[in-house]
């Protein structure tokens, strides 16, 4: 195996793109959201978190190959990949060290080298035979790692100051142990049993890519092979005519043994991750737009809370993005998730009318769940903001976020109707973009202008009417579509739309 083939496996461009994206997020969270001093956030980011991410990204493609059935048969593959991974760890480690030395001058290169080596080697111990497909998992892991790192930051920094050579020796020894264990034969042997593992580089751009669609189809297939006590007793006669029962059947076909609560929990992680990410991003943008007028996190949170009730801000209009982006994201996510649930995984022994009803119900249940999750995300966000700003929290703070998020329901319904109605892909793209980006943006700004009247009877009546109309249009589209569609057609994905 030569360098060219190894680099093809690694895909350096994608590796660097993912590293830059998550690395930037990690540093910005540390500095702005957690309010760490600049030197501390740089120390944690460049000596611990970014190396761990790079280590994970370097080992990911190798683990992916190990999880394929051809791998155990390749003579010398384990050792060849161990050699190349060792080289890439050294090159990557040195590059990070070169970056960290000027950025973290208060620590010695020896201590930094020890931390970087250990952080890069730790992901090799990943024994997971299965990786969840939902991209928020890295965010959740990152958040957990950040919390742990923050808790242990002071003693770690003190140790690096007091005994840098000890840190170097311990880091290098730990890295060596991880390296030997990560490529040992027993560690590698059984990975081929589960081929349902896709590294970050493969699944870019994370939404709608060929590999992700394939992975989801494979995941459904694997899930369907598992059974639950309820599914084992299902028969057509037992299921009968109940819509609720048939919804469970459809859900089982799509997610296997996974219960709806578990699915909702997974969706919840997405929502809970996205809102703080957007909040942090927006704060960074606000800072970048006014470098001479530095806003502290407490001031920013106070402005956010003030804006939540009045719609007025004292500083940059960029903070408006904090409302626009989650609304757009909520619409986009619900549209994507909901449009996936409109394609049945299998042909079921039910009439087309019933199939339309089942899938309509399933899609709207997904939308409703996501709506609740996004509102919960906002709630968490405001609770944190109130804590940081030192102000009391009250439910009135949720007014603008709620008013900005509720239109997700009619927008998702209209998007679904669009997917079913508009046959020509050329038209779908601008309509999709208009629906999930244009309308939420407009309505966020509209809500701002009349936040004090948003929950009076007239706007609520208009919202209810528009939502009912959108749901009715969606139901008509479902019923009409399932009278004539091919029930086994694959899911419409963003690739088909020419977006990804």
């Amino acid at each position, binding site marked *: 195996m030569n360098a060219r083939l190894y680099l093809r496996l690694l895909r350096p461009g994608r590796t660097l793109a993912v590293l830059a994206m998550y690395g930037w997020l990690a540093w910005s969270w540390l500095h702005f959201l957690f309010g760490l001093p600049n030197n501390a956030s740089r120390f944690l980011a460049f000596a611990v978190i970014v190396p761990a991410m790079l280590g994970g990204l370097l080992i990911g493609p190798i683990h992916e190959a190990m999880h394929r059935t*051809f791998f155990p048969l390749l*003579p010398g*593959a384990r050792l060849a990949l161990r050699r190349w991974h060792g080289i890439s760890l050294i090159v990557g480690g040195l590059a990070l060290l070169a970056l960290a030395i000027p950025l973290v001058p208060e620590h010695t290169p020896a201590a930094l080298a020890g931390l970087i080596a250990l952080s890069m080697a730790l992901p090799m111990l990943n024994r997971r035979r299965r990786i969840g497909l939902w991209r928020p998992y890295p965010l959740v892991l990152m958040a957990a790692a950040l919390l742990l790192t923050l808790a242990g930051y002071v003693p770690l920094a003190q140790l690096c100051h007091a005994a840098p050579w000890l840190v170097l020796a311990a880091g290098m020894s730990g890295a060596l142990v991880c390296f030997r264990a990560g490529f040992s034969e027993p560690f590698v042997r059984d990975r081929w049993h589960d081929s349902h593992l896709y590294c970050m580089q493969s699944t870019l751009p994370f939404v709608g890519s060929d590999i992700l669609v394939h992975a989801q189809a494979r995941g459904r297939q694997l899930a369907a092979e598992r059974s639950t006590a309820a599914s084992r007793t299902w028969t057509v006669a037992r299921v009968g005519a109940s819509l609720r029962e048939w919804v469970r059947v459809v859900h089982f076909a799509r997610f296997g043994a996974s219960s709806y609560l578990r699915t909702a929990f997974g969706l919840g992680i997405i929502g809970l991750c996205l809102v703080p990410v957007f909040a942090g991003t927006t704060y960074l943008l606000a800072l970048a737009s006014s470098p001479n007028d530095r806003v502290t996190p407490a001031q920013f949170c106070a402005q956010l809370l003030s804006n939540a009730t009045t719609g007025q801000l004292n500083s940059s209009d960029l903070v408006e993005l904090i409302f626009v982006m989650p609304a757009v994201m909520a619409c986009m996510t619900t549209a994507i998730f909901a449009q996936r649930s409109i394609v049945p995984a299998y042909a079921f022994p039910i009439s087309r009318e019933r199939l339309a009803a089942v899938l309509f119900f399933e899609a709207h249940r997904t939308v409703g769940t996501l709506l609740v999750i996004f509102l919960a995300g906002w709630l968490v966000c405001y609770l944190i903001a109130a804590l940081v700003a030192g102000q009391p929290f009250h439910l009135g703070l949720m007014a603008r976020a709620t008013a900005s998020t509720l239109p997700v329901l009619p927008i998702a319904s209209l998007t679904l109707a669009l997917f079913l109605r508009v046959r020509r892909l050329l038209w779908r793209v601008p309509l999709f973009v208009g629906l999930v980006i244009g309308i939420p943006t407009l309505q966020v700004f509209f809500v701002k202008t009349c936040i004090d009247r948003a929950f009076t009877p007239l706007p609520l009546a208009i919202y209810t009417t528009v939502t009912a109309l959108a749901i009715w249009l969606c139901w008509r589209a479902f019923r009409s579509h399932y009278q004539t569609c091919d029930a086994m057609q694959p899911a419409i994905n963003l690739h088909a739309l020419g977006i990804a």
Partner: protein
Amino acid sequence: MNTPDTSTPFAAQSLSKSYGAHTALRDVSLALPAGRVIGLLGRNGAGKSTLLNIASGFTLPSSGDALTFGTPVARLDTPQLTRLGVVQQEARLLEWMTVRQHLDFNASFYPGWDRSLESRLLESLEVDPKRKIVQLSPGERQKVGILLGVCHHPALLLLDEPMSALDPIIRARLLDALLERLRDDGCTVVISSHILNDVEKIVDWIVALDAGQLVENSPFDTLQESFAEWTVTSLNGALPARFPEPFVLHQQPGERLARLRVRTDDADAVARFAATHHAEVKARPLNLDEMFPLLTRQPKARA
């Protein structure tokens, strides 16, 4: 198994494999002959895939010994793996790669990778090397799995349902390619398939499993000579309701005409049977499809 024999492609002694409470293989002992095309037969769940997985080192035995090229399967390494080719029913490949990239990747681990054979197979199996694996149909993926399994000229080629997703034309081409490999390389081929009409064209040895136990391990010619269908026509009176001879494995009795499926190595058995039952007996050999149910329902191993 004290004396490892490196010339025997695969040998097993008292081999058992269990998955939890389920026993997939039970006390299997056999040695595959070198340079043969071996048909591995059995019903679903008989243990065929488990045996092939053990031979290729994918799975380790629960008890007993399993040696591939004289090396315990747990210790298979470069010298053995370069001589081993495996084609699985459902090859799991790196989906993001193109066929060409995957071939290059695998080829880099084999010193004897044959580019001209690769080109010939790409053409005859009609595989487009520029396409991504993720875009291929299951049948096309199976073809790529075949390419990855044979282009390094393995001495032992294990094929687990390699033709299940292929159309008849491609199946015929694959069989030709396998025969070519046998002729040119003298490799041992073990093929597990339910498409017995195809298997029959190339096999010269049969190994049959039933419920995890070995029930047959013989040259195919010998089996063809011993299995037959007899059409028995009575010359005098009614035929018995049931023929008691132990070599009669299956019978469709009738008053004047009976059809029997038998297994006997005795050349005089037909004449003796005709004389005993005052009947005329016409014998015809069985094909593998007809032999299969008889092979896989025998009470004990004949190896």
